[in-house]
């Protein structure tokens, strides 16, 4: 069973048996939409023509996380989720190839949040600053991607550490339950290396450094205990 599914199951179990009078802790589950906004110089390498680009498709996934209120207006938060898989499309001279790969990402992020006073009853805006770690547990080149690069291709994306920030608001539904909507972003950078193999010649590589400025929209239901 996948790591994140285990985490989710554990969190749901916690939820089921929770009984803490102070409501310092919140567990939430929600839906996330990610637009990646990837930018990069053309791929380069010994056999790479100019104009080789990719475009990363947006994706929806399940988010969940935990927040601990350590002071009246402050919380520390760990934002997780089911790792989404993005479709990567050829762009520039690669545009005719359509989807060239699929990439799974895991972007756990920790935030320190400041919660403002209610602007209308029950609604408290907040802002947060944090640290994102993104890694790419799984990648695959599509058959079309292999045709584009001239052979079976494996893809590596390097890990990224970077600043993250978000803003949003919580809406208290009752003493325990709340809704939260956030818009988040982070500074994510990764070196992508695509290695193509041939039956009777050495492999060739193509690489570029991708800068992501993702926009992540979350709507979550929280249970505080």
């Amino acid at each position, binding site marked *: 069973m*996948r790591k*994140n599914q285990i985490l*989710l199951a554990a969190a749901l179990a916690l939820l089921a048996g929770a009984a803490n009078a102070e409501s310092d802790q919140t567990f939430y*589950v*929600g*839906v*996330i939409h990610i637009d990646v906004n990837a930018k990069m110089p053309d791929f380069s390498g010994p056999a790479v023509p100019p104009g080789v680009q990719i475009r990363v498709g947006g*994706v*929806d*996934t*399940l*988010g969940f996380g935990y927040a601990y209120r350590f002071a009246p207006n402050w919380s520390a938060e760990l934002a997780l989720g*089911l*790792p*989404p*898989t993005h*479709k990567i499309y050829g762009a520039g*001279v690669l545009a*005719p*190839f*359509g*989807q060239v*790969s*699929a*990439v*799974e990402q895991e972007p756990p992020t920790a935030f320190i949040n400041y919660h403002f006073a209610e602007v209308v009853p029950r609604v408290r805006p907040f802002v947060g600053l944090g640290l994102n770690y993104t890694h790419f547990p*799984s*990648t*695959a080149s*599509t*058959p*079309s991607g*292999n*045709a*584009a*690069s*001239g*052979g079976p291709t494996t893809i590596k994306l390097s890990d990224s550490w970077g600043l993250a920030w978000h803003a949003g608001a919580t809406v208290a*539904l009752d003493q*325990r*339950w709340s809704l939260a909507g956030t818009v988040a972003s982070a500074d994510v950078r990764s070196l992508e290396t695509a290695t193509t193999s*041939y*039956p*009777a010649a050495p492999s060739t590589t193509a690489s570029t450094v991708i800068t992501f400025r993702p926009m992540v929209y979350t*709507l*979550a*239901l929280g*249970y505080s205990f």
Partner: protein
Amino acid sequence: MSKKFNLMLSMVSVAALTACGGGTGASHFDPPPARGTIVTGVLAGHVTSAEVDFGTGPKRANIQALTGTALCGVDVRYVLYITRDPSGQPATASTAVLVPSASGASASAPAGACSGTRPVVMYAHGTTALQSTNMADVGNNQEAALEMAMYAAQGFIVVMPNYLGYDKSSLHYHPYLNAEAQAVDVVDALRAAKAHLASSGSATQPDSHLFLTGYSQGGFVSMAAHKIIERDYSSEFKVTASGDMSGPYNMRGMGDYSMGVLNNGTPQVIVGASIFFPLLSTSYQKAYGNVYTAPSVIYASPYAATIETILPGNPTNVPTGTTSESTLSSLYEQQLITSQALPNDPTFSAVFGNPAGTNNLINLSYIATYPGSGFQTDLTTNTLSGGGWAPKAPVALCGGALDETVPYAINVPAMSAYLNSVGVTGAALTVFNLEDPTTVGLTINGAFENAKTGYAQQAAAAYLAANPSASQAVANAVAAQEMGAALHGTLEPPFCNVLTRSFFSSILAAGG
């Protein structure tokens, strides 16, 4: 609490479903791009009618009596497109598109002969060992230059696929003489050529005529394309006629002939077999998986180790300035010998060795296992002189009865008999045998015999120049042998092209 718990559970399931499950398996892959999608399409160059005439003239190929003088200038276009490999996966391949042009046309070209809507000829090229073969390289590829002079300079649009596995193709092998796979590639080349012309602003565009032709391997490919276009793509393309030249239509017969099945167990020599067999066994093994459990079943050591990857290929250490594709191809073939990827047989023909068992490429022990083998079955699968199909459009077959590479006797009688048996007779089937004036006329036959004699005379003179102490008789014997080996690749093509072109022109003139 339960209402909100339910809300959360439904959010969980929505998001989990949207995420499509984790990982990066094929469930996350869109279908591949449509067949015939253009990757790049460019105007690569332009040739004037004067330049074509120089090439066919006495200082060069000296075939102007056959090609005629050029009417049109020619725009040379190149298109890289997405097609499918034999397993149905996307792969790229490229094609030349030669387009008659009023620019650079001859002053004597009739108005409208070089622009507007013009008939399309698909020309499929013959076997080549050179992976970088590119029919758009008309300056360096003699076969391409011949078709440019024969057709494009005379007002036909010519589409010349390079084939999967050649030039910039992403496929790492060539589906040689795989009828279905090569036909898919031809169809996608035609689609890409048409789309490129439509978006290019070219003053010359295809009309509704589609002629299919090709030489040697290309004769097989054009006939396979005829069969498969009429079977599967009839709403998209209408074949006007096919003119198939010196092709191995009877693949089963070719295999049985080479393996001795037709001659009481005595294998027969096919000129070029050392190049053909590796291409063929690799092609069928990749497509059907039943040729061998390992290449060493067929091929002797050390050749088995590399046999699947050496053809087609490109030479190394090329002398600066060498651009002629035939020179590069010969250089590569020589390197295959020096690197011991193929045996030291400069004729590239004695696959069982000469004498048998000496320096052989194919294990003698394979001969007995060939009948009933998967390889033989695959040859039958790819035999066009059978299988129940019947061409709707007229067919011309051209060859020379003394051809030593693609033997006429194995292929043409079987093909005509088969076509007759499915009702293709009379005007629907024309057979040209260059050695037989009753089929090609006295003029062509006479010119062909002169070409053979002239070739042999030059070969004898060259032999004497290199071996001054040799007798004329010996020189003549060597020359006759060389001339025989040159029939298929050098002597027959211009004549078969002329006959095929006349066949196409008469169909056009009759309003076909």
